[in-house]
């Protein structure tokens, strides 16, 4: 369903993704793990047509996201790592916007929006502006939005970041059901190792732009002779803490406030 061959992405001198290859089967739940700044989000951006790779070949559902952008876009849905809601719209309007641009017919759209908003317990707040929501509520809305159009491939970039264990479980159960019932392929990244161990059928670990191990959770534990995925992960990637460049977004947020 997803094929990646010798994919490389350079930003100037810096190589964010360094000659990686992997494949994900149809109906598989695939976890893409790595420390901060390892290249996970860059890979997802290339797969989802937001970035052009420097070299390498990618295919999604048999389509090339570089040349057959439209066809590729028809086959996936994505929940981004960082916020992508419109704060000035209500929860319902954000959902409706998504449903319409993904061409979900009105009857199904309204039905799913209601079902999903009830599922993430935001139905009571559906007519409130998103800017009044807490971080956790926004995250839940974002995940719910990504599920409206039931894509063939679902990308989740740290979907459960900042959510409590109850909500995380709840959301994963929903995604697993979709995966079973509709053979939806799921590609996700996370920093919660127990989550990856419990949900993923296959795992790839990326560090400094290179894939350093892949296999089932069991296989990874066997290679590293550890008992948990967390230990396996730490053995493979080392214990040093990674720096991540501060983005200019925070500075900009301040400035936008001053503008209003």
């Amino acid at each position, binding site marked *: 369903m997803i094929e990646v061959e010798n994919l490389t992405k350079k930003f100037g001198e810096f190589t964010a993704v360094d000659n990686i290859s992997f494949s994900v089967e149809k109906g598989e739940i695939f976890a893409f793990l790595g420390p901060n700044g390892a290249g996970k989000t860059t890979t997802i*951006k290339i797969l*989802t*047509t*937001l*970035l*052009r790779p420097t070299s390498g070949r990618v295919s999604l559902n048999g389509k090339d996201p570089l040349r057959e952008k*439209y066809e590729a*876009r*028809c086959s*996936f849905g*994505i929940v*981004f790592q*960082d*916020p*992508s*809601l*419109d*704060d*000035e*719209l209500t929860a319902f*309007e954000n959902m*409706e*916007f*998504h449903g*319409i*641009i*993904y*061409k979900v017919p009105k009857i199904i759209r309204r039905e799913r929006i209601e079902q999903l908003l009830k599922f993430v317990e935001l139905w009571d707040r559906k007519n409130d*502006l998103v800017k009044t929501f807490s971080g956790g509520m926004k995250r839940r809305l974002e995940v719910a939005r990504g599920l409206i159009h039931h894509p063939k491939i679902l990308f989740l970039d740290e979907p459960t970041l900042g959510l409590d264990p109850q909500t995380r479980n709840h959301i994963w159960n929903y995604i697993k059901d979709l995966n079973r019932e509709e053979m939806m392929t799921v590609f996700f990244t996370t920093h919660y190792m127990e989550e990856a161990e419990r949900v993923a059928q296959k795992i790839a670990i990326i560090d400094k732009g290179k894939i350093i191990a892949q296999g089932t959770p069991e296989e990874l534990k066997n290679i590293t002779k550890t008992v948990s995925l967390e230990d396996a992960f730490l053995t493979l990637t080392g214990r040093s803490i990674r720096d991540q460049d501060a983005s*200019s*977004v925070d500075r*900009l947020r301040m*400035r*936008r406030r001053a503008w*209003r």
Partner: protein
Amino acid sequence: MKEIYILWLRQIKRYLRSKSRIIASLGQPLLFLVALGFGFGPIYQKAGGGNYLEFLAPGIISMSILFTAVFSGIEIIWDRQFGFLKETLVAPISRLNIMIGRTLGGATVAFLQGVVVFLISILIGFRPANLTLFPLALLFMFLIALFFTALGTAIASVLEDMQGFQLIMNFLVMPLFFLSGALFPLQGLPKTFRLIASVDPLSYGVDGLRGTLVNGAHFGLGTDFLVLSAITIVVLAIGSYLFSKIQI
């Protein structure tokens, strides 16, 4: 079509919800109308120009459309920084439709702003000479709005963040406004100045609006209309191309 509509609707809703932005953006045209209109009125009259407020109002209406339109186009930078742009860019809709939806939305907002400033100018004493041409005046207002929103979008497609915004205001938007003949007649100006004014797109907008509201177009209404329409199409095309090249 549905997706163009929803993109359009989003812009309208955002505009109507930002009350502070609406009020703030009406303050400036009001100040210009009152201070310049009444301040220069007597001198203008003595010089034989007639009623200055009548001359000025179409210019100030054009100004408010220009500012709102460029700002609406530039809003793409906010969307980029705050993530919403990604949501639209990964969706299976053509870049051209995104561009059209956004531009129509921004243009509608700028157009409404122009109508409000028109009403304000009526309140403080502006009297259009020619109401039969009023529909044409509305058309010119919409064309100005459309052109500058498309221009804003095209510029925003190549800017990474708001750092460049001041630069655009000071070196593009302000000169466009001051050199357009919005504040003074172009007749009898030095040749160089008239040449500059004749390559300023806003000159044609102001002129068309003035021609339809109070008579006395400098370039002629037909020229105004043709020039504005032609450059709008060109900028829309360039904008769509630049927009389709956005990477995040």
